[in-house]
């Protein structure tokens, strides 16, 4: 076993995600657009926006992961790349994890880094806590991308798979969303919540690649 196919898949995915739509600007535009719709939809009351802001960013991250992951494995299943991986005896779970990671790097991480600016738009106080929150968004979105990847791999051969991915992946997003919201609430239990968030993300990173590999072997049949 060599690391070459894994690196190649990683590089190719990163290139696709980065070059195929103005780099990280496209997901950022998506997130910005979604965030701008919120004050228009619920009104511009400062207190309300401050209260819902962190939650809106979590929702926007979850949606961004679902939108970017829709075709992550579909093209590989269609053009035969998947068959070549399987024939080469490459570790499919590692390749799937590498591809997911590449998409997270080009769509998840930039959004998390961008989040302090959005938080300011939602009337949050400018403080170092916003940077801590950006780290939490980065951690949580990694779990979103891995679970979303399982949905994407399962529906790789399904036409109109995007809706199916959402239905499959959203229940799996629950722990991340809850621990993430709890960590930023400042209420009781929020002190330990970042550790729980990290644990649920690690769990996703450990389990999801094997589920993706099993689903991709199915897609190749």
């Amino acid at each position, binding site marked *: 076993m060599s690391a070459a196919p894994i690196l190649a898949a990683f590089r190719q995915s990163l290139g696709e995600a980065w070059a195929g739509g103005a780099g990280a600007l496209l997901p950022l535009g998506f997130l910005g657009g979604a965030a701008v719709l919120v004050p228009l939809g619920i009104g511009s009351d400062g207190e309300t926006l401050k209260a819902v802001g962190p939650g809106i960013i979590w929702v926007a991250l979850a949606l961004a992961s679902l939108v970017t992951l829709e075709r992550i494995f579909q093209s590989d299943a269609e053009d035969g790349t998947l068959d070549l991986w399987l024939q080469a005896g490459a570790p499919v779970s590692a390749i799937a994890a590498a591809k997911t990671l590449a998409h997270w790097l080009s769509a998840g991480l930039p959004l998390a880094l961008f989040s302090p600016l959005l938080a300011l738009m939602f009337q949050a106080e400018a403080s170092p806590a916003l940077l801590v929150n950006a780290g939490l968004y980065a951690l949580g979105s990694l779990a979103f991308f891995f679970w979303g990847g399982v949905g994407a791999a*399962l529906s790789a051969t399904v036409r109109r798979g995007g809706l199916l991915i959402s239905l499959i992946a959203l*229940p799996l997003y629950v722990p991340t969303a809850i621990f993430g919201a709890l960590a930023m609430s400042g209420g009781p*239990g929020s002190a330990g919540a970042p550790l729980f968030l990290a644990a649920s993300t690690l769990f996703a990173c450990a389990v999801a690649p094997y589920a993706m590999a*099993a*689903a991709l072997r199915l897609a190749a049949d």
Partner: protein
Amino acid sequence: MWSYFANPHKFLRLSDWLAPAFYALGAACIAYGLWQGLWVVPKDEYQGGDIMRVMFIHVPAAWLAMASYSALAVASFVWFVWRHELADIAAKAIAPIGAVWTAICLATGSIWGKPTWGTWWQWDDARMMSVLFLFFLFLGYMALRAAMDTRQKAARAGAILAMVGAINIPLIKFSVDLFTSLHQDASVITADGPKMAAVYLTPLLVSAVGHSLLFGGLVMTSMRTEIRERRIARLRARELEAF
């Protein structure tokens, strides 16, 4: 042990009398539970008066919601490891039936919640949320199976999803448990034994057994239908070949 039960002929012979027996016993148990629950047991003012009688549907439905997802996960695992077709037929049969009981649990819970807690639904309640996500897992499972173009693919994709969902359930339960809950604590299965008065507990347990038997009977009938459908499809294919 699995291979003994994996034989469709043995299953058909067994379920031929077992399914009707389950229906009859289940109907008797549910009828007893409803009669006791609706007319005999005294109402409990603390639990909202007469509305607490919905408990004799709600609690068995909650029990079956969890039991049917566990059954789905076990059947998926057995199919994934040993590839016994009957396990996949069972998984396919369990999903819609389990989803219905989960929906019944949610609906009766709301009906009970409105007069006693003053709300149909409480978003930050652990119990309600976990059951709701269980319902979504069932829906996702059925949607995924329906989207696959062959039976074999539907079985494999479904099994992967059911197993991923099953290892996630403790995590989901654990995460939502951090919420405060309006729902009362466990009162049937606790370390110190049941906390409920025997006058409620007996009809409740009988009702739960009745619902489980009905569930078993429905799953068996659904599996029998699926086996027959597959047999019809094979016979049709053979007929076409003969032309």
